[in-house]
């Protein structure tokens, strides 16, 4: 288990996510806003590339390429002196952590990756065993927020009391590296705890809480009806639990719920009462951030205006 006391707030490389940048840029700006307000020492480095996660899980990139690209990103992090890679996306998190373990333990892979670098004259990218520690150099942004939950509570401007919120923790955060989760991996409570600090009333347990969002990377495109059926199961259960706000921590889940809720409503002839956002957007709102300029809600498919009006933010 990851101990909450061991989560750093210094030297974090805020690892940009393609899915965030492309679909919900507000998640990144909200995270930066919150980190600034909480006094977290982080940097963003434009030399960092995609982690290949989406491509990897849709069978476009094989493992070696993914690992080589990860090694390159690790070098970027080390060189700028911000070695604690902090991800906005659970897939970046799992991919980087896994690649680091592989580079440390599998000499053959490490040698291959390094020989590619050397051959191409990128000696500065060479990865030596132990350059990064898979347990202590990789975090998800939500863990940083959790470690600052006391400060969030102190600084909050808006109190979301009475809001029935439900959390969807990302599979690639708590199922892939389940021994390295803050708290019980069968019942992660990171989002719930942070949301509660903002005043919301989290529905701590609901049916199918641990079910996937349904995206499954290529599955959304190749097995669309199964994928949407899973998402519907989840939305149905949330509807039964009377949830008005669903909070996630991964742009892929975000897409699946926010972009496809209207699709499901249309295709299955159902209606849902809930809206969606990322936990960083929620914390930002609670600290007083602008819903559009900072949180970027204009890029969402399920409109948030009703929710924002109800809570008195707009």
């Amino acid at each position, binding site marked *: *288990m990851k101990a909450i006391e061991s989560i750093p707030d210094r030297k974090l490389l805020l690892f940009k996510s393609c899915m965030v940048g492309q679909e919900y840029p507000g998640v990144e700006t909200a995270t930066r806003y919150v980190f600034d307000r909480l006094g977290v020492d982080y940097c963003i480095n434009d030399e960092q590339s995609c982690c290949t996660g989406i491509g990897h899980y849709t069978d476009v990139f094989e493992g070696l390429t993914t690992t080589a690209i990860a090694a390159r990103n690790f070098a970027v992090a080390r060189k700028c002196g911000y070695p604690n890679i902090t991800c906005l996306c659970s897939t970046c998190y799992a991919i980087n952590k896994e690649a680091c373990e592989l580079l440390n333990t599998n000499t053959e892979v490490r040698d291959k990756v390094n020989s590619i670098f050397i051959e191409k004259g990128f000696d500065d990218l060479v990865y030596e065993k132990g350059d990064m520690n898979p347990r202590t150099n990789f975090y998800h942004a939500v863990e940083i927020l959790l470690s600052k939950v006391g400060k969030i509570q102190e600084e909050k401007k808006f109190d979301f009391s009475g809001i029935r919120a439900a959390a969807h923790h990302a599979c690639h955060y708590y199922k892939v590296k*389940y*021994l390295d*989760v803050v*708290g*019980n*991996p*069968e*019942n992660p409570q990171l989002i719930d705890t942070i949301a509660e600090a903002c005043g919301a009333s989290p529905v*701590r*347990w609901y*049916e*199918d*809480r*641990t079910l996937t969002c349904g995206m499954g990377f290529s599955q959304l495109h190749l097995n669309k009806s199964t994928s949407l059926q899973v998402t519907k199961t989840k939305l149905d259960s949330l509807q039964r639990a009377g949830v008005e706000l669903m909070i996630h921590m991964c742009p892929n889940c975000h897409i699946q719920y926010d972009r496809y809720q209207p699709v499901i409503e249309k295709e299955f002839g159902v209606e849902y009462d809930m809206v969606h956002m990322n936990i960083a957007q929620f914390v930002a709102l609670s600290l007083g951030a602008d819903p559009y300029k900072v949180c970027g809600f204009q890029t969402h498919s399920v409109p948030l205006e009703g929710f924002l009006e109800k809570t008195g933010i707009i």
Partner: protein
Amino acid sequence: MTDGTTDGLDKAAVFICHCSGNISEHVDIDAVKKTLKAEGISVFDYEYLCSSQGQSLIKNKILEGNLDRVVIGSCTPSKHGTLFKKCVQETGLNRGGLEIANLREQCAWVHPDRTGATEKALSLLRAKLKRLENIEPLEEIKVDIAQQALVIGGGIAGITAALNLADNGISTFLVEKDSSIGGQMAKIGKIFSPDKLAEECAMCSLSPLMNEVAAHPKISLLTWTEIESLSGSAGNFMVRLKKKPRYVKDSCTACGRCSRVCPVPVEDEFNCGYMDKKAISLRFSQSVPKIYCIDPDYCLQLNGEACGKCATACKTGAIDFSQKEEIIELNVGAVIVATGFEEYDVSQKPQYGYGIFENVLTQMELARIMGINGPTKGELLRISDFSKLSNAPKSATCTSGCESSSDHSSDNSSGAETPKRIVMIQCVGSRDEKEGGNRYCSRYCCMAALKHASLIKKKYPETEITICYIDVRAFGFYENYYRAVQETGVNFVRGRPAEVIEKPDKSLVVRVEDTLNQKIRELPADLVVLSAAMVPSPGTRKIASVLNLSQDESGFIKERHSKLKPVDSSLDGIFVCGTAQSPKDVTDAIAQAGLAAVRARAFITDSPKSLDNEIAAINQLLCTRCGECLKCPFNALSLNESGRVVLDPLICTGCGYCTELCKDGAVQVAGFTKSQLKAEIEGVLEEGDMLGFVNSGIASLTCDNIGNSVLTYPSNVKLIKVPTTLVVGRDLVLHAFKHGASSVLFVEDPPDSPRAEVIYPLTTSHFKKLKEELGDSGSRIYFKKTYVPNTKGLAGTFTSLAREGEMIK
């Protein structure tokens, strides 16, 4: 310290054993004899010194020659050391006058070259003779043991232990924190048994035992009592107890009138939290002692409201609101911890809905519901229906004067349903590597599930029961029971369920993958029963910390050796049994409790106890009372009222850490004093030898084991046994180098026992410090940790260090 006989070796003799060729085939005994005789020493040899003829030979020679010191060259002292010790002591010789040279495991068996082996044998014997030049007699240390025992925890394990002790004549105190003894077994209703396909009534077995405890003249029963502290040492523990007030005197006849008039319903911990008890109650109807007890948290009178209804109702005037807490102090020789288990908190698995859905319960709760003294008087009902009924307190309306379950009122006439479909989920919190789970198997729960399934099938044959399991662990004869239950039509699904879901009508669905056919199944259920892991009770955790006992990673009290010392705790004189030690069923708890009683009795009756005399001894003449040695890791040393440093011989392990701390040489370990070790070094070493200082525990066994394993190493490897390498200070190492050692190796025990866990880190830091202090010579000292099977590795180290020595030579 000498006995005045420093007159050299004219009254010394050497006895060499042939060990039927084991020694004589490799060592030229005649040559050894000749050499020693030429030096004026009497030498005798015999085919088997350990035989009774061999022993007579030794005894006769001692008496005839009026000998005062003896060296025996034979097999390892760990084999026949005690025998030879006894043998020489029978002649009146102090055992400080006996030395044993290991000519077999550490000479004949490991050095195939006859000349080398013979030379080494000679050096080993010479070293022992040298040691005896200044004989240091060993004093007998004896302590009186308090002739009574304490058993903590009155479950089946504690009851069994107390009865066994008492039946064997030991006065025993049995301390129980609840108001009655009986423990968890009193709750479980029926018990499975290994030899019958039937369930027996738990209370029918337990109740007579509880009554026996109460009636036994040798047992003092202290219920509603907790342990505050324990001090002193093995054989003489001082225990401080806190006896809480019951507010009811012993004149209580348990008529139950008080409880009927008491207006305050409280949660019944015995019945898993049902509101079917009053502020004044018996824990259960067969409670021992059968005296009511007032719960001070809920009693109106005790919380400042005028009530006193019970006092008015009581015909014997037993109610006494003025009772106060009592502190009791006991002096006991031995302690048995039997503080038991509790069920794992299954709400840590929210996917199973415990605490969220009403119809999810644990096996213990099911046991209570099926118990005739339970909240439904044995009727199986859906909890959601039942709790609706029981939520309304029935204080005033309870008129059932029935003595057997006077506190447990219920009225099931109004529409409560018997569940038709029951699903049981096994291994909840057991065999679970996730955070919050336990890796071990809890051993009781497969059988408890089978038992409950069987009981339900007998009473309600229409009920459909499904058990979701990982493996069914019906060990030993229980397999017959498992077979029989299968035949009653209970369903078994192999899979760990993912989730339990509640429907609007409060019925449930269990989602599980049947891993035998890889199909996802949704099992409808009216009740879901979770087989929760067994975890140490809070009382067990508390006692472990009050008594300072080692615990395993899950908090169970750790036994000293899982096979050989299964009931000895990490402290001498404290024993453990039952589920406080590890998950187990009643059968095993009883068997283990019997053993604990035997061990405790043996400990107590061996009084006055003579102690191992190879422990620290303080020379008060040299001691400056600087207090450095009080850093003893076992707290064996302390200052007495007059400021003298004194040793508790029962606590001292003889590790020798204090000898390193004392700058004045005032503390030495008897049998391993600096002068003895220096003498042995001088006697044993030749130029270019490798010298090993070997811990007398595991490390010594490993060295002997090299011989048993037909491995070899060069004969210029010389080994000296020490209590631990902590007694080897800088001066001894320098002495070794001065007398020809090419290198010095410290061979240590691994940190595998509670004692070694403390000592090992001290030895490594001691070694590091020495290495630094020695400067250049520091590169010639080495450290090795050994395990008994690691013979090859150790022989290899010996060989390579010895070769280096030869090269230097």
